[in-house]
């Protein structure tokens, strides 16, 4: 992997890579090119993560037009602030989806000014594409999502509830405590227990990359 700010190994700075060559680069290497204002490299980043970003935005804001705006704003931010990406702090996907989440939460607060819906029926808006019509990457993305949702369904409901309210709803732990009528410590404790359970069992099962050492 190439750290931001350095030239990809074996790629002269002045050389324009072909679309096939760009497709073979890791996200982190593509970000090095994005930092140099390479629009084609950026297009590959979008093609890899735009679907997940739009899906996350829709899950949070519950409106396809706003989700579209949020996704576009977030990727423009990625394009303009690519130099701020730090591979040591996480993957390109995590960084990008973090920007999408923040923008979506902002949009949600601007649009509603009230508690967001958290029981959205995503299936109702799922486009009527059959598996045969999907590209390979989209089919894999949807299959991964199905498996992850099934795995998260194993969490105790009280833990998944506070995690969902925080992550997808954008509520602070104080707001959640007030909403659910429970002590702050209980809310934060459930967040920790839920995340630890995901971390220890579900994430490993799903093959998510990350530091896997078990903390004492």
């Amino acid at each position: 992997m190439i750290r931001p700010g350095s030239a990809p190994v074996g790629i002269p700075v002045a050389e324009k890579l072909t679309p096939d060559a760009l497709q073979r680069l890791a996200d982190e290497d593509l970000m090095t090119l994005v930092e140099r204002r390479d629009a084609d490299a950026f297009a590959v980043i979008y093609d890899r993560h735009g679907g997940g970003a739009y899906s996350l935005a829709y899950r949070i804001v519950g409106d396809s037009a706003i989700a579209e705006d949020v996704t576009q704003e977030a990727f423009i931010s990625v394009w303009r602030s690519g130099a701020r990406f730090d591979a040591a702090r996480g993957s390109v996907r995590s960084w990008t989806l973090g920007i999408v989440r923040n923008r979506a939460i902002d949009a949600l607060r601007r649009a509603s000014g009230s508690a967001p819906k958290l029981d959205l029926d995503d299936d109702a808006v799922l486009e009527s594409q059959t598996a045969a019509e999907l590209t390979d990457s989209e089919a894999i993305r949807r299959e991964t999502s199905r498996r992850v949702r099934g795995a998260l369904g194993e969490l105790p409901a009280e833990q998944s509830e506070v995690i969902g309210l925080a992550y997808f709803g954008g509520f602070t732990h104080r707001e959640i405590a007030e909403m659910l009528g429970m002590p702050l410590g209980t809310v934060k404790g459930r967040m920790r227990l839920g995340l630890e359970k995901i971390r220890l069992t579900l994430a490993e099962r799903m093959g998510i990359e990350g530091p896997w050492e078990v903390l004492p």
Partner: protein
Amino acid sequence: MSNEREECVALRDDLAAYALGALAGDEMAALERHLDSCEACCARLRWLSPAVDLLPAAVEQLSPPPRLRANLMEAVRAEAAPTAVAAPAREPWWRAVRGVIMRPATGMAVLILLVVGVGAGYLLRGSQTEAPATQLVQAEPLNGAATVSATLERTGDSATLHVHQLPAIAEDEVYEVWVQRDGVMEPRNTFVLDQDGSAAAAVPGPLDGGEAVLVTREPRGGSRQPTTDPILSAPL
């Protein structure tokens, strides 16, 4: 150290809330100050992060509308290469010069400069490097676009394409400029029309060795290969 350890244990719940983005501003700032000096808590946060990273994958996966990519790439390409967007219509150089000369205060100064300049040019003749010459080439309408008129103003290895009376296009379309070389179409630029159906589009080089500059209608953001027949062609 034992106090520090106890503090870290007490902050485990806060770390989970922080990882989920659920701490308010003051609490978040306090925790971040602690993280600045506590490797143990940083390690725990790194340990938790894959669990948070998993959450976006849990939502139902949708296909974003194609226009999202087209709009995004149009904006990005405009910033990636400033010359790749439609250049504003330029005032002809002689009109600008005439405007300056016609001002009384500058008229005499210009006249003096002209005399001095002609004299100096005569004395220095043969030792000056000539500026690249500008060539004007009339473009030929193609595929029934009879009303279209266009002129290619070439200076050195780049050019500006001035078009008039091009057909209006939909909001999700652009015109795209291509350079044909050895039968291969090389994308150069996209542009949209002014209200009167005209535009001046930069045609970045290299042009040397090219056969013609052509224009097609394409989806917003442009295409890597033409998707419609060219409506005009200017020979290089």
